[in-house]
């Protein structure tokens, strides 16, 4: 009964989505106010029905309703409750439902927080979001229905993939999808602007907080995924350039370019058509990511070919969405003016150059991700494009971009002078160079990679400090505190996000240059030494979990004889799917992580144990959190909030201006 209710709710949501995706758009074009008025209630109703469907699926999981095929494939009676809930998005069908839930959530947020926008813009934005929703709801209902019945019902479920039985699974996908799907709002604003022909600073200001918010969620989502992989996969890597990771990273890179370009459009009215194009690409890459992950094309081109229904659907959807918006762009974009004038050397140009670097980096990741698929599909052989390729290409492209990060914020709008910039930045550069040469020595080993990484990180921090300092000097307020208070939140947001990048770079540099690891055979009582720490295996015990059995090692870690930590790495065998899972034990620290994982048993009461010391590894995710916080701070900027007084003043000013 409950699954049928869910199914019915999805169908109703589809009907509302069709209404939302057509009438308000036509209404906005023809000037029919009642049709435009449909947009908000349709969006909110659609959210309610998708939420009901989501609730129904969750109910089926919680109550172990194995007459639902999707539940039977992804759950089990012994699965703990929190994972039965997370299992809702543990497979293909449920992920799509989560996708649509997020989409309708964003849509509803737009419908609620858009009372300052003209009706025709709201109708167009919600209309475009409605059309996207139509596509995904159809995809779900026609190819991937999570409510399909399994008759007769299974006695028990096939269980959730043990890899996914982790708290990370509870938080990572919703966060990631919030970001992914959030770019649909930026996309809808861009399409609405093209449709209405009103592409101006006002448009940029409306769309900017939404875009930044989506970017923030995506940043956190990717960071969570990376952290999860780090502790759950059990071998201590944090980024693998896996196609699935790239699928989320490409929209992030494009989104990063987009938020910078939007800043210029808002402040200076320039880059308008470019900003629209970036918004289209960012969302197109989100869709492409969904296609790559959901069509099975990544695992094997041939798997895709044998069951192409889903893949073809998304591919067609992708072509319609991207093709349609690019045609619209080509048709309408020339009507967009150039915006404020600027010189070849100016903050605008620096930001544009940074945009080029980010887009090229995105293109390269896309190339590396799709290349093996194309070669294989064309029968030209099987190759692997892995970390060595991506590291080489990506670092080469990002290093200049990171350098520009230091220059851009200090350069003046409209017109800047290179010699002046050089004078103002010479101390920042000197600090970065000296620090980069000396810091690696404190780690006991000098490497070119470490020096280069420190140079970039220190450069970003030192130039940010310089920027803040020169800005404070120009602020008229008296006293440092007052000067600091007059700067806008979005300014601090920018600085914080940039420092976040520096922190991230430090993390990556330290791990890549100074991590140490050993694979050793340890019998009970034996010890291994690494990076000044002694790891002694004290015991090996069999333990039983709710749905697995495990071998648990007890290792005492000491440094110079003093106890540091007792660690308990496990090797688990899950009862249903029978796969072995490595549960690493991690001692997290501000300057280093100790990472211990069990490999394989080797004979008499001995195991292969991998011990690792990872300096500053947590800075990688710390940097991402700082970036996200920077985004949040920008969104909270005063100018995006309704200030009643400012509004009254603006109305008065408009009246005066019109009269004069």
């Amino acid at each position, binding site marked *: 009964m409950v699954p049928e209710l869910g199914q019915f709710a999805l169908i109703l949501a589809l009907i509302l989505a069709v209404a939302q995706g057509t009438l308000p758009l036509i209404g906005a074009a023809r000037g029919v106010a009642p049709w435009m008025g449909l947009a908000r209630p349709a969006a909110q109703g659609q959210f309610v029905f998708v939420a009901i469907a989501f609730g129904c699926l969750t109910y089926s999981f919680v109550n172990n309703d194995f007459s639902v095929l999707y539940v039977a494939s992804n759950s089990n009676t012994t699965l703990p409750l929190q994972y039965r809930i997370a299992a809702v998005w543990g497979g293909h069908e449920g992920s799509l439902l989560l996708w649509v839930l997020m989409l309708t959530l964003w849509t509803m947020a737009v419908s609620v927080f858009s009372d300052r926008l003209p009706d025709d813009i709201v109708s167009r934005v919600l209309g475009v979001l409605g059309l996207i929703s139509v596509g995904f709801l159809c995809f779900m209902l026609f190819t991937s229905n999570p409510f399909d019945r399994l008759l007769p019902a299974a006695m028990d479920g096939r269980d959730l993939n043990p890899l996914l039985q982790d708290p990370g699974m509870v938080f990572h996908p919703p966060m990631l999808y919030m970001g992914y799907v959030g770019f649909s709002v930026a996309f809808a604003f861009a399409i609405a602007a093209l449709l209405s022909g*009103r592409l101006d600073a006002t448009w940029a200001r409306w769309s900017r907080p939404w875009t930044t918010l989506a970017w923030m969620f995506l940043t956190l989502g990717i960071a969570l995924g990376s952290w999860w992989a780090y502790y759950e996969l059990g071998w201590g890597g944090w980024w693998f350039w896996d196609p699935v990771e790239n699928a989320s990273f490409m929209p992030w890179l494009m989104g990063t370019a987009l938020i910078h370009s939007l800043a210029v459009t808002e402040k200076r009215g320039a880059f308008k058509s470019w900003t629209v194009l970036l918004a289209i690409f960012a969302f197109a890459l989100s869709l492409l990511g969904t296609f790559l992950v959901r069509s099975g094309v990544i695992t094997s081109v041939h798997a895709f070919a044998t069951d192409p229904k889903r893949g073809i659907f998304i591919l067609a959807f992708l072509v319609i969405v991207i093709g349609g918006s690019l045609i619209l762009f080509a048709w309408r974009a020339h009507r967009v003016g150039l915006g404020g004038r600027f010189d070849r050397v100016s903050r605008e140009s620096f930001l544009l150059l940074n945009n080029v*670097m980010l887009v090229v980096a995105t293109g390269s990741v896309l190339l590396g991700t799709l290349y093996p698929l194309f070669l294989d599909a064309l029968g030209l052989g099987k190759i692997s*494009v892995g970390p060595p*390729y991506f590291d080489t290409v990506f670092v080469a492209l990002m290093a200049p971009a990171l350098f520009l990060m230091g220059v851009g914020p200090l350069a003046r709008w409209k017109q800047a002078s290179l010699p002046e910039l050089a004078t103002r930045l010479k101390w920042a550069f000197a600090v970065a160079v000296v620090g980069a040469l000396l810091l690696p020595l404190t780690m006991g080993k000098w490497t070119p990679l470490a020096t280069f990484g420190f140079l970039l990180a220190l450069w970003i921090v030192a130039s940010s400090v310089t920027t803040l300092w020169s800005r404070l000097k120009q602020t008229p307020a008296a006293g440092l505190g007052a000067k600091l208070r007059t700067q806008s939140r979005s300014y601090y947001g920018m600085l914080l996000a940039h420092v976040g990048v520096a922190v991230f770079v430090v993390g990556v540099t330290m791990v890549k240059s100074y991590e140490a690891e050993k694979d050793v055979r340890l019998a009970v009582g034996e010890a291994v030494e690494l990076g000044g720490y002694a790891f002694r295996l004290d015991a090996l015990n069999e333990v039983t979990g709710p749905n697995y059995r495990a071998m648990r090692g007890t290792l005492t870690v000491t440094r110079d004889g003093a106890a540091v930590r007792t660690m308990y790495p496990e090797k688990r065998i899950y009862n249903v799917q029978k796969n072995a899972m490595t549960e690493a034990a991690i001692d997290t620290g501000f300057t280093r992580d100790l990472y211990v994982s069990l490999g394989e048993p080797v*004979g008499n009461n001995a195991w292969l144990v991998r011990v690792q010391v990872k300096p500053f590894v947590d800075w990688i995710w710390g940097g991402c959190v700082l970036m996200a916080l920077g985004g949040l701070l920008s969104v909270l900027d005063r100018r995006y909030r309704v200030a009643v007084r400012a509004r009254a003043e603006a109305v008065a000013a*408009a009246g005066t201006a019109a009269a004069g």
Partner: protein
Amino acid sequence: MEMHKYMILLYFFVFPCALSHAAGDAALEQRVQRVAAELRCLVCQNQSLADSHAELAVDLKNKVREQLERGASEKDVLQFMTERYGDFVLYRPPLKTTTLLLWFGPGLLLLAGLAALFLRLRRRSAVAAEPVLTAAERARAATLLDSSSDPNSLNHHGEPKAR
């Protein structure tokens, strides 16, 4: 069966491993790691030999260690692996006609991007720029942004009725 598996492991892994560690050959281990990071574990989802604990991976890593110990260069080992398993085993694809675009694509993209940027900026400074907003337009923008939309100020096409 299980016992047999462990014997193989012992033979392939533990003995050479113990030997190399006994010799304190950190430099060799580093070389092994470096080579192993370039090679794909063929039985894993998407994992390098260096990261993998799979039997085949451990086996291959020992092969790498063995060859390096015998004086082979890192390049020789990669060559040996490619001959045995094809290009698929290499995480850094070799440069050949089918991978030309892969290796030179990013550079071409960068050149194209920079050229487009340069041309755009040059054309831009040649074209007369759009006039900056007048005070009245600015005020109208501010009203639109900061007040809830007033239905009377816009007609149905979203254009202001009177300028």
